[in-house]
């Protein structure tokens, strides 16, 4: 449900749409918990889409951080769908600046960590602040490379914006494109549909 797409090594012509399109298939793995029974293990065809751009910005002092909750919970940015038959494909890009972004889902659990117990991102550490941190150049505002997939009532995804040292303040500008996708359940998918479908994994599958 979270992907960082690398810089392409080759181009194809005609170009491939970056966003999910009407008629595309998506398949949710069996790892989605029972609380998401509406999508768990099921295949859907996208009935319609509507990409919505949105910006979030914060000016923060040096060596300090702020958590940005993308969910619909109180104080969140409300970027999650409100219906079970909707999937939000959310692209995230950054305007340039001296800041780092850590991803947590749910709150307190870093998406990017290593096996050794101490190798968890920490904003107060001079070294661990860089562990798994995404820099603005990793996903530019005009060429967004971080893709997130949200369904109704998914656990809150937190972006921790950390202004690195060496500057007084920084304005962190996050550019989102929320591609609203209405899902149509395919009750008896065939092999071709299963093969074509984009697999949407649960976050626990990404953090092994």
């Amino acid at each position: 449900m979270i992907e960082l797409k690398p810089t392409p090594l080759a181009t194809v012509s005609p170009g491939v749409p970056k966003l999910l399109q009407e008629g595309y298939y998506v398949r949710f793995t069996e790892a989605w918990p029972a609380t998401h029974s509406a999508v768990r293990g099921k295949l859907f065809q996208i009935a319609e889409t509507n990409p919505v751009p949105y910006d979030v910005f914060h000016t923060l002092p040096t060596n300090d951080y702020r958590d940005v909750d993308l969910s619909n919970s109180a104080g969140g940015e409300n970027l999650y769908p409100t219906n079970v038959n909707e999937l939000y494909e959310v692209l995230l890009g950054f305007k340039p600046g001296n800041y780092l972004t850590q991803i947590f889902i749910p709150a307190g659990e870093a998406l990017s960590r290593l096996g050794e117990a101490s190798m968890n991102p920490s904003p107060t550490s001079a070294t661990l602040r860089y562990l798994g941190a995404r820099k603005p150049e990793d996903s530019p505002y005009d060429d967004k490379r971080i893709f997130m997939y949200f369904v109704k009532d998914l656990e809150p995804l937190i972006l921790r914006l950390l202004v690195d040292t060496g500057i007084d303040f920084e304005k962190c500008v996050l550019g989102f494109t929320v591609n609203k996708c209405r899902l149509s359940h395919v009750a008896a998918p065939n092999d071709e549909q299963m093969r074509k479908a984009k697999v949407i994994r649960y976050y626990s599958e990404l953090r092994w």
Partner: protein
Amino acid sequence: MPSLTQSMVAPALNTVFSLGRGNAKIKPSLIMVNNVLGLQDAIITVLDTFLPSASHGTPAPIPWLIPRLGINVSMAACVSMRDELKDVMILGVLSLLIGTADANCIVTVAWDFQ
């Protein structure tokens, strides 16, 4: 690219050129100080005024006013700056402050949003 010309008549107040934009920084691209008819040397400071967001270390932030560039222009002189501004960024409101108010000191500022 917007621009604005103003007389530096406000002594204790900043002369505001752009209120800025939430989702962008201001990048000044030109500052021209016309002090040809000025009554004294013009000592001008480019200011950045903003209210930070609440953060982990500062849950109740206060407004900040940070000088980003200082310019001294002699009486009877006119100075234009472009390349010198390439690394100057304004996070909030772009304003200029003059040491001694002078209606004959005319400043033009042009800027982009980034």
